[in-house]
């Protein structure tokens, strides 16, 4: 435990204070590229290090990356807004590519999410799985993909990093998974590659229609108002929307997600459900909406219907699941509904809610998958019908699961409350004050999700942790060790930080969302 703390805190401090500080002078490493490269370095390191050191190497770089994420978050100047710390590498201009990284108010909190889930995921897989070198290398690659996608200002690199996310996940499910892992892995890969095919085609359409041979997100966004004809936008928005919708597990493109999460190893579920899904919402806000505002106005009401369907349908399906991991998976599908609904309001409050929901659902879904992994680890089963009264055996596990329940139910104090509340506010405003009229109907329906969303989680809590003790195996039951608690605490603390005092976070995401709203030009 002490060594884990050392290996975490030292690089964390390094990342926070040393990297890119003025002390290193003007030749210091570029901040964002370093941030993005750290998981790649971790992947190489764990591949080349001796097997028993793979996890330590990964933990080292993960902690350093977490430090950097915090540093970027703290240094980001909300008052200025816009892209900061931008980096360019001009060597690829001839190909129309534009290696450019930048961070803005929308992505800065997401970097914390990526790094926190990365770090937590490494610790969650501490009891090394078979072939630890490959395992940790793939896990790091996934993280690098997510980090790169959040930072890229160029559609080509956005897409490249996004694809980098999918392949390692496929292998993680297929090799280290459980249950019907091959089915799940194939389904996952086919679905997401199918989604990314749509995204790719959409990107290419933007690229060629722009007429300036550019993949630069900023340029394409600026073009949108004048550049793309409404017919073009109306045609291409659903292509991009469905492409990102697959990633967001938007109904009816969601069935990959429960199977994938249920089969994947814990850390992969955490990373995928927590971060990769978020990328879908990020893509909508970052690319699809700015580039195709008229298309968005045309199609978002339909997406709003799907979003509300997500919230209710997935919650009801979750009610029928017998496998805890499936319950959590469907819950994550349901929470993505809030995210999409927030985007569909096309309104500042709703957007902020959606942006906070990205971070919140990422943290909390990762938290939930981490806990389910521990339950499975202790009891040897994920079927809640075989379990009961675990609180009596493991008060800490019970307490953490209670917090998890509360957080997922969306109680004040947790980030989920703030995010979901803002989504509702946005939905109301959009529906009743001149936005999408359909939200007038959807708003009350959506709000009922706070009941249905509570039922299945409370039921799970009651069945697994309350009542008389029931479990499939006898023998001693060890409550959580501090090493197992540590990653969960990090995720929880971040969620609480947002939930207890959301203003700085909301201000930060607003600094990029308010210009976006201005850019979209309000409702027409």
């Amino acid at each position, binding site marked *: 435990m002490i060594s884990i703390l050392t290996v975490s805190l030292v690089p964390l401090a390094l990342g926070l204070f040393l990297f890119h500080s003025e002390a290193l002078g003007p030749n210091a490493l570029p901040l964002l590229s370093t941030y993005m490269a750290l998981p790649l370095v971790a992947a190489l390191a764990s591949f080349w290090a001796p097997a028993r050191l793979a996890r330590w190497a990964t933990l080292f770089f993960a902690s350093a990356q977490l430090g950097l994420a915090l540093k970027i978050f703290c240094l980001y100047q909300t008052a200025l807004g816009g892209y900061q710390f931008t980096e360019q590498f001009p060597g690829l201009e001839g190909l129309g590519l534009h290696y450019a990284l930048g961070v803005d108010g929308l992505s800065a909190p997401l970097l914390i999410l990526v790094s926190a889930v990365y770090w937590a995921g490494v610790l969650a897989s501490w009891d090394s799985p078979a072939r630890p070198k490959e395992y940790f290398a793939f896990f790091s690659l996934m993280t690098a993909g997510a980090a790169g996608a959040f930072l890229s200002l160029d559609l080509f690199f956005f897409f490249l990093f996004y694809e980098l996310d999918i392949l390692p996940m496929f292998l993680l499910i297929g090799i280290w998974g459980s249950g019907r892992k091959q089915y799940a892995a194939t*389904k996952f890969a*086919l*679905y997401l590659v199918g989604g990314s095919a749509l995204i790719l085609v959409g990107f290419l359409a933007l690229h060629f229609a722009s007429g300036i041979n550019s993949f630069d997100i900023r340029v394409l966004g600026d073009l949108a108002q004048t550049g793309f004809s409404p017919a073009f936008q109306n045609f291409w928005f659903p292509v991009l929307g469905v492409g990102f919708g697959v990633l967001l597990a938007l*109904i*009816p493109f969601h*069935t990959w997600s429960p199977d994938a999460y249920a089969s994947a190893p814990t850390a992969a579920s955490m990373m995928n459900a927590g971060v990769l899904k978020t990328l879908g919402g990020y893509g909508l806000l970052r690319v699809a909406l700015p580039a195709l505002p008229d298309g968005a106005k045309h199609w978002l009401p339909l997406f709003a219907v799907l979003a509300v369907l997500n919230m209710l*349908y997935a919650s*009801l*399906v979750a*009610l*029928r*699941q017998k496998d805890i991991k499936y319950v959590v998976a469907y819950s994550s599908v349901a929470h993505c509904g809030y995210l999409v609904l927030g985007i569909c309001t096309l309104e*500042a*409050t709703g957007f*902020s809610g959606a942006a906070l929901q990205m971070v919140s659902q990422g943290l909390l879904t990762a938290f939930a998958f981490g806990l389910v992994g521990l339950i499975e680890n202790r009891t040897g089963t994920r079927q809640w019908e075989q379990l009961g*009264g675990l*609180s*009596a055996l493991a008060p800490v596990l019970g307490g953490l699961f*209670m917090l998890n329940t*509360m957080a997922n139910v969306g*109680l*004040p*104090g947790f980030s989920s*409350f*703030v995010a979901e*509340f*803002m989504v*509702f*506010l946005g*939905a*109301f*405003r959009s529906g*009743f*004050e001149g936005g999408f009229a359909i939200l007038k109907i959807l*708003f*009350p329906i959506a*709000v*009922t999700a*706070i*009941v*249905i969303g*509570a*039922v299945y989680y*409370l*039921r799970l*809590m*009651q069945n697994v*942790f*309350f*009542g*008389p*003790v029931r479990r499939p195996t006898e023998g001693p039951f060890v409550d959580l060790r501090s090493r197992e608690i540590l990653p969960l605490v990090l995720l929880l603390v971040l969620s609480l930080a947002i939930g207890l*005092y*959301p*203003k700085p976070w*909301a*201000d930060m995401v*607003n600094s990029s969302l*308010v210009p976006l709203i201005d850019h979209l030009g309000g409702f027409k």
Partner: protein
Amino acid sequence: MIQYSWLIPALPALAFVLIALLTKRSKGLSASISIGVMAVCLALSVCLFLHLLALDPAGRVFAMNWTWLSVPPWQANMGVLIDPLSVNMLLVVTLVSLLVQVYSLGYLQDDERLSTYYSYLSLFTASMLLLVVSTNFLQIFVGWELVGVSSYLLVGFWYFKPEAAEAAKKAFVVNRIGDVGFLMGVAAIGMTFNNFDFTQVEALVTQGVAHGTYTSGFVSILALLLFCGAVGKSAQFPLHVWLPDAMEGPTPVSALIHAATMVAAGVYMVARTFPLFSADLHAMTVVAYVGGFTALFAASIALTQDDIKRILAYSTLSQLGYMMLALGAGGYTAGMFHLTTHACFKALLFLGAGSVIHAVHSNDIWKMGALMKPMRVTGVTFLIAALAISGVPPLAGFWSKDEIFAAVRDSSVPGHQWLLAAAVFTAFLTAFYMFRLFFVVFLGEARSPQAAHESPKVMTVPLLILAVLSISAGWLNWPGWDAFSRFVYEGPAPHPESFDGVLALFSSLVALAGLTLSGLFYYWKVFSAQKAADRFHPLYLLLKNKYYVDEFYGWLVRKFTWGLASLFDWLDRQVIDGGLVDGLGRLTQDLGGLLRFTQTGSVQNYALVILAAVAVIYLCVSF
């Protein structure tokens, strides 16, 4: 003084964190932190109260705000609002909470999770106080949800009991149903007025209605959405089902949360946002009728129950109905006055019941009896509380109930005479079932298998304090003096309720009649309860089974929610996944299977195809 008022919710929150993270190992330390903090909060509240008293009545409102969240053009604050209404609630909450926490020391002395218990109690009190001092709709919603959680935790404190776990879940979910409306109301208010602040929204509403910007119908929709939350939290019909089940929690918890404070939050919220309700008679009428109906409905169920705590729970429902009725009838001070007195005597009743349960280890009143002799303090204080709730003069309940009757009589709600009749009949039923309880438990023959003994001092002293208050709290509104009303009422006009000698005489006669009839049945045994039950058997069954509301909801949930869930699950598995997704996979495979036949494996076939293709391309290109 006022600038420190934020400490009142902050200190218990701090106590919760301290106990949960640091002092869990030491029961004594945890309990002392919690109780000590509560004593400080009570002292602070008393100071605030005295401070306000010393001020001119017009200038008794203070508010502090900190920005908590903002997306231009709106912003939401967390703040502290100190005015007579909130100070009144602060006093009630901190006092009852302190007494209950002290009492719990005796009641739960053997429980090994005492530290957890105190941390939950601190969390509850912090949330409740946050709710009470809130300056705006968002904050009250936050506090609202947090008291819901603490209630969930405390009802399910003995989580290993399946009934407790089930009750906790039920309480949470039913409350959430009410919260759907509340949340919609808060969202609608915040987004319509770009403001969450009570005073500002109320000013905007008043102006808007005056200028015709908003119709009073719109305002009453807002009010009724908020009222949905109050129906859930204050357990009004049709969302009352959770409260009786919540009695599975430890008894002191029932006294604090499910009698004196949290369930009164709905009433408090309606009082707090009263200008929204009073803007339109429709909203007021709904509030009055829901309250009046719940009062009568719950009182009739209480007649037949056997579990001491459930009887008290139904009595709480009925009394909360009174408060809602008072508010709906326009009796703002009457509702708040009854809330205050009710907190004293209902907490006393629950703590007394706890003392009895502690002694005989059962909740069934038919396993108790003749407890007056061994448990003199409990018995006497229980009697005082029973007299108070029945409305026997000159105890607290008499005064507050009488104000409610007066308010209903003078109300402009259509059909208010029927509401008055229902309220008076409820008073009769109240006296009857309370004294049924008292006669069976404390008098008559002993039925308990073991010898009962009086509870320790740590439990009886809170009973005595509450007993004194149950007697005297009503005197605050002594006719002519009206100290309570003058303190709490903020509006420009003098409060409308006035003491009415005739009505008071009539209502005390009704109460005495109920009491006497109950004595004829259960003490003197002139009439037989058994025979009466047989005579009116269908009615008896209906009441005994609580009008089958639970069964109906159960049926609804099974048929509707569960059915829908099953349907969606089937849809997900068979149609979307099995049909569309796997179907697409199969389609691809089958297509591949068809194309397979072109792959003969013979190189020369391929070469021939290539040749043919070249020829075709050539032809295409050249012509």
